[in-house]
């Protein structure tokens, strides 16, 4: 599977004004891969949440970069969002990562909502915090639905002929 991986990389300043560029890039690549409108919308939010955390927590208001790596595979799109700042405490956030409705409004805290959304909207989320923070988001391509199924069949048959 790995031999057919295509990688696109993008580095943006860790500044809220550039997170839309990450979304636009994601949109272009995911559309190229044949993901549905809904799947792309889900991924846009997940990628933005990872970027939000890097902007808010990685560099303590100092300048820094966010590195995005889009790994386009036959069966999935993996988006790696990496910063070189101090690690955001994902373990702590994971404890709070829950929908809001379980509590009365007065007790609701929105911390952890970003991580919750990443987990709810992607097929897999993994976080490593060794040098900086690296968030790895995976979306599986669900083939065999609607018109995309035909595109997949035709592209694979072209490969066989080659």
């Amino acid at each position, binding site marked *: 599977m790995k031999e057919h991986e295509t990688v696109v990389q993008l580095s943006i300043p860790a500044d*809220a*004004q550039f*997170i*839309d560029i990450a*979304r636009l890039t994601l949109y272009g690549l995911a559309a190229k891969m044949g993901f549905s409108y*809904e799947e792309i*919308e889900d991924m*846009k*939010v997940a990628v*933005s*949440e990872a970027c*939000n955390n890097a*902007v*808010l927590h990685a560099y303590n208001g100092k300048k820094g970069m966010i590195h995005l790596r889009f790994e386009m595979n036959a069966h999935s799109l993996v988006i790696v969002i990496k910063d070189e700042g101090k690690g955001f405490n994902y373990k702590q956030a994971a404890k709070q990562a829950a*929908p*809001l*409705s*379980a509590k009365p*409004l*007065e007790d*609701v805290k*929105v911390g952890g*909502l*970003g991580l*919750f*959304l990443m987990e*709810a*909207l992607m097929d897999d989320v993994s976080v490593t915090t060794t040098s900086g923070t690296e968030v790895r988001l995976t979306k599986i391509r669900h083939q065999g639905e609607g018109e995309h199924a035909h595109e997949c069949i035709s592209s694979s048959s072209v490969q066989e002929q080659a």
Partner: protein
Amino acid sequence: MDRRRFHIVHDEQPDRHLVYIKGELDLAAAEQFRRAVEPLVDDAAKLLVIRLDELTYIDSTGIGMFVALLKTRKKQGAPFIIENVPPKVQRLFDLTGVSYFFSETNDITERVGGQS
């Protein structure tokens, strides 16, 4: 670099503050949204209505701000409703559970409306 992706329009009426938000309510737009809405939130005498027809994107930043608005308005006993929520925004409200609190305030609003 000032091609704004987020717009907010405020229309003050005798009984309510009508706020239209358009574009992408993300981290970059959060401060603009906060500045525009904060003075209206404290006006407990009027209904606060935010219309989302043309909201094309929201994430936890925007949802967190709606929760903060809900809390403030509830403390004041003042109604706050959102209207015309696009399906993809509604989906995120449902996923995060924030729609539960909105239906709660909408019920209150209906009761208030019924009394007047």
